[in-house]
C-alpha cells in the first residue's frame, strides 16, 4: 500500500487497472480527459481516442463482448452522443466488464450545458456508482467491473468536476486482478438486437433490475451515518462533502449507488430522523426518485436548494439558515478576465477577417468558440459538436443571406470536424447545399489539452506525452482535402492561418461564389503544440490608432500615452500585430550582427 494524492480521474484509471482492464477508449472532454491520459501509462492496457463518444462506446462494447474488460470515458454531453449504442448495450449486456465513465460539469466550467448523466443510467436501467472522493473513485472503479460481470450489464461510473479534478489521499494497493480474456462464444439471441431478440432481452433486463434492486439494499456502496436525529440528509458524491462541512451534526445517507436506489434502506432512514432532506446539485434526479418511493421530503427551512449550478457548503448553509462567516463584499469594479486566444493563436486572424466581413457565423465547440467574445464577437451560434456545418445549411435554407445581405459562414475545428462534422457536411453536399465553411485545422484538440485526433494522426500513446510528435505520428493522419473532394466538395482551398491577407482573399472569394459550396481549410499549428518562438517585433512611431490592439492579443497593451506596447514575456513573435498595423509601424527586430 502506498499513500498518494490522486485526482478522481487518476484514481478511476488506477481502479480500472487493478480490475484488470485491457481496453480504455474515449473522446476527450473536460472533466473526464485525464482518466485515459493516466490509464495509458500502464503498458498492459490498450488505450485510444475515438473520433467521438458513440464510436468509443461501440469499441468498448465490442471489446467487452469479445471477452476483455473495457473502460469508456466521456464528459456528460458525450453521453448524449453515445446514447444510441447505450440504449441497446443495456439490453445485450456484456461478456467481460464494461464501465462507462460519465463526467458531469455542474456550473458549466468548461461545457455548453449542465446535465445530470445519471438520468441516462436510470433510462438505460444500468447500475450507477457515484464516488465522493478519490479513494472511493478508485474503489468504485474496481468494483464497477465486478458488478458489470456479476449482473451482465454495462455500469455507469458517474462523477462531477469536483471529484474528477480534486486530488485527495488514496491508499493504492497496486495489484492487478487476473486480466485473462473471457471466452468468446456466438450468442445471436443476446447480441443481435433485432425485434424478436430485443423483446426477449427486455424481459432479461427486467429480471436483472429486480435482482439489482434487491442487491442495492445491502451492496456496501451506500453509507448511513447517524448523528443528530433531527435532520437527515440524503446525498451523493461531492455534495456529501459539502453537507458534512455545512451541517456537521446532521445524519447522512450517503449514496454510492445512485441507480437503483435502495428503497427500503432509504425509507428506514427517513423514518429514523425527524426531517428528511435530499440535497443534490443542478438536478432533481434523486429527489424525484425518493419522492416517488413515497418518502416525505422536507424543504430546507431558509430556502430551497438551488435547482441549477454547482453546490458548495455556503449554499447548503444558506438553505438551512446557518449563518455564514463574516467577510468583505466582492469587489465590483474589476475588469473581467475571461480566457482569451493565446498570443500567436492561429484562430485569431480568421475571426478578425470574419468580423470585417460582418458574416453570420454558425460556430462550434473548441478554443475557437472564443471568437464569440470581444473584440471579435464574430460567432453567432454554438450548440453541439458538428452543428456549425449543419446549421449553416439550415441558415441557407432560411434565406438569411438574401434577407440580411450578410454571408453565412460555418466554422469548425479539426477535432470537432472528425467528431461530427463529416456527416454534417455530407448532408449539405448530398442535398446540393451551397455556402462557405471553414475548418480551423490547428493540428490538435486544443481546448481539452492538446490531444491527438484523426486529422493529425497523433494517437493517445503518442500524445500521452502531451505535445505529440506531429511530424511523425504513430496513427494515420486524415488527408482533409482528399476527404473533402471525395465527399463531393468541388471548391476546396488550403490557407495559412497566420497570413491575414490570404485569409481575407480566401473568404472573399468563397463568399462571392454564392452558388457553390466552398470549404476553406485554415491551417497552422496551435501554439501549445508548436512552441517555437521568434523575438518580439518593435513598434516605431505608433500612430495610436488601436488597430493592432483590436486583434485581441494578450501580449499587446497600451502605454500611458495611448501608443501600443508589446509585452516581450508573452509575445511569441507571430507577426499578427505586424500584419494588422495599417501604417507599417511594427517590424521585426533586425537580427544582431555577428
Amino acid at each position, binding site marked *: 500500500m502506498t499513500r498518494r494524492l490522486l485526482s478522481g480521474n487518476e484514481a478511476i484509471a488506477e481502479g480500472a487497472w487493478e480490475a484488470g482492464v485491457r481496453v480504455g477508449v474515449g473522446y476527450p472532454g473536460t*472533466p473526464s480527459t485525464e482518466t485515459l491520459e493516466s490509464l495509458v501509462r500502464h503498458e498492459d492496457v490498450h488505450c485510444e481516442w475515438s473520433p467521438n463518444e458513440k464510436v468509443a462506446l461501440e469499441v468498448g462494447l465490442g471489446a467487452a463482448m469479445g471477452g476483455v474488460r473495457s473502460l469508456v470515458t466521456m464528459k456528460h454531453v458525450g453521453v448524449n452522443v453515445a446514447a444510441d449504442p447505450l440504449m441497446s448495450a443495456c439490453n445485450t449486456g456484456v461478456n467481460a466488464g464494461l464501465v462507462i465513465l460519465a463526467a458531469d460539469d455542474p456550473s458549466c466550467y*468548461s461545457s455548453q450545458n449542465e446535465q445530470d448523466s445519471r438520468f441516462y443510467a436510470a433510462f438505460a436501467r444500468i447500475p450507477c456508482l457515484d464516488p465522493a472522493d478519490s479513494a472511493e473513485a478508485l474503489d468504485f472503479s474496481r468494483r464497477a467491473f465486478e458488478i458489470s460481470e456479476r449482473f451482465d450489464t454495462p455500469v455507469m461510473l458517474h462523477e462531477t468536476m469536483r471529484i474528477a479534478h480534486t486530488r485527495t489521499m488514496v491508499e493504492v494497493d497496486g495489484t492487478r486482478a487476473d486480466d485473462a480474456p473471457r471466452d468468446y462464444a456466438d450468442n445471436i439471441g443476446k447480441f443481435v438486437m433485432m425485434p424478436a431478440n430485443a423483446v426477449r432481452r427486455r424481459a432479461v433486463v427486467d429480471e436483472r433490475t429486480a435482482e439489482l434492486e434487491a442487491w442495492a439494499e445491502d451492496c456496501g456502496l451506500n453509507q448511513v451515518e447517524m448523528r443528530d436525529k433531527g435532520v437527515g440528509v440524503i446525498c451523493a458524491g461531492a455534495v456529501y462533502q459539502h453537507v*458534512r462541512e455545512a451541517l456537521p451534526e446532521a445524519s447522512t445517507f450517503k449514496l454510492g449507488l445512485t441507480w437503483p436506489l435502495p428503497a427500503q434502506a432509504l425509507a428506514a432512514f427517513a423514518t429514523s430522523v425527524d426531517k428528511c432532506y435530499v440535497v443534490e446539485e443542478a438536478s432533481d434526479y434523486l429527489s424525484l426518485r425518493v419522492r416517488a418511493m413515497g418518502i416525505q421530503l422536507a424543504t430546507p427551512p431558509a430556502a430551497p436548494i438551488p435547482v441549477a449550478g454547482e453546490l*458548495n457548503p455556503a449554499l447548503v448553509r444558506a438553505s438551512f439558515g446557518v449563518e455564514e*462567516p463574516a467577510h468583505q463584499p466582492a469587489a465590483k*469594479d474589476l*475588469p473581467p478576465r475571461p*480566457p482569451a486566444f493565446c498570443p500567436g493563436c492561429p484562430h485569431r486572424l480568421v475571426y478578425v477577417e470574419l468580423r470585417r466581413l460582418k458574416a453570420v457565423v454558425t460556430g462550434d465547440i473548441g478554443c475557437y468558440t472564443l471568437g464569440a467574445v470581444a473584440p471579435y464577437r464574430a460567432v453567432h451560434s454554438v450548440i453541439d459538436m458538428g452543428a456549425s456545418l449543419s446549421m449553416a445549411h439550415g441558415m441557407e435554407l432560411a434565406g438569411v443571406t438574401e434577407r440580411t445581405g450578410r454571408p453565412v459562414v460555418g466554422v469548425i475545428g479539426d477535432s470537432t470536424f472528425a467528431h461530427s462534422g463529416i456527416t454534417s457536411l455530407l448532408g449539405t453536399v448530398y442535398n446540393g447545399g451551397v455556402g462557405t465553411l471553414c475548418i480551423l485545422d490547428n493540428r490538435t484538440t486544443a481546448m481539452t489539452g492538446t490531444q491527438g485526433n484523426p486529422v493529425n494522426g497523433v494517437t493517445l500513446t503518442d500524445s500521452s506525452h502531451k505535445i505529440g510528435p506531429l511530424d511523425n505520428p504513430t496513427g494515420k493522419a486524415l488527408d482533409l482535402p482528399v476527404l473533402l473532394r471525395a465527399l463531393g466538395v468541388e471548391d476546396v482551398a488550403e490557407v495559412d492561418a497566420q497570413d491575414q491577407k490570404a485569409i481575407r482573399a480566401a473568404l472573399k472569394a468563397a463568399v462571392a461564389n454564392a452558388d457553390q459550396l466552398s470549404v476553406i481549410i485554415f491551417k497552422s499549428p496551435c501554439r501549445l503544440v508548436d512552441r517555437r518562438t521568434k523575438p518580439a517585433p518593435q513598434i516605431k512611431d505608433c500612430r495610436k490608432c488601436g488597430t493592432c490592439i483590436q486583434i485581441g492579443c494578450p501580449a499587446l497593451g497600451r502605454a500611458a500615452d495611448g501608443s501600443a506596447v508589446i509585452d516581450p514575456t508573452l509575445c511569441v513573435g507571430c507577426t499578427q500585430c505586424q500584419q494588422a498595423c495599417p501604417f507599417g509601424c511594427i517590424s521585426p527586430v533586425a537580427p544582431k550582427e555577428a
Partner: protein
Amino acid sequence: METKTILLVGVGGQGTILAGHLLADVAARAGLDVKVSEIHGMSQRGGSVSTVVRVGDHVSSMICDPGCADVIVAFEAVEALRAQQFLKAGGAMFVNRETITPVSVNIGNFTMPQNVRARLTGMGAKLIPAGRIARDLGSPKSTNVVLVGALSTALDFDADLWRTTVREGVPKKTIDANLAAFEAGRAAALEA
C-alpha cells in the same frame, strides 16, 4: 489539526497549479489529510484561475467559501481583489505586486481598478515583489516558488519540510534556482 484553507489565485499560465502541489505535498508529508481542487479547461487560456488547498486531520469539502480562506496567495494583484471576499476575518494574504492587464482592458471595454495596492494593504495584505525577486535571481519562472516561500511563513510546517518538498517537487535542473526563490520569498514575507 483543524482544517486550514489556502486559496491560490492568479492568471492562467502563472504556475498556481505547481504551487498548489507543493503545498499539498508538504501537508501530506506532515501526515495530514489534504484536498486540492483545481479548475481546468476553458479557464486556462489566460483567464482567472484558482486552486484551493485544504489541509487538516480530516477534510470534507474541497471548496473555499466566502470568509473561509485562512491564507490567500495571489499571483497577480487584480486577482487578489477578485478573491477578497474569500478571506477569513484575520486571515493572511500574500500578493505579488505586479498586475497583468486583461484583454478586456486593452481593447477599451473596461478599465483597471483604482488604488489596487492601497486597497490590498488596507485589508492587511502583504505585497511581495515576487516577479522582481525571481527576475533578480535570474529565474523569472520561479515567481510561483517565491510566493510559496511567502506562504510558508503563514503555516505551521517546518521550514525544512518545505525545502525538501521544493527540492523533490521541481524539475531537477531548476532545484537550486527554486530553492533560492523559496528562501527569498520567505525573507520578503517576514520583512513585509
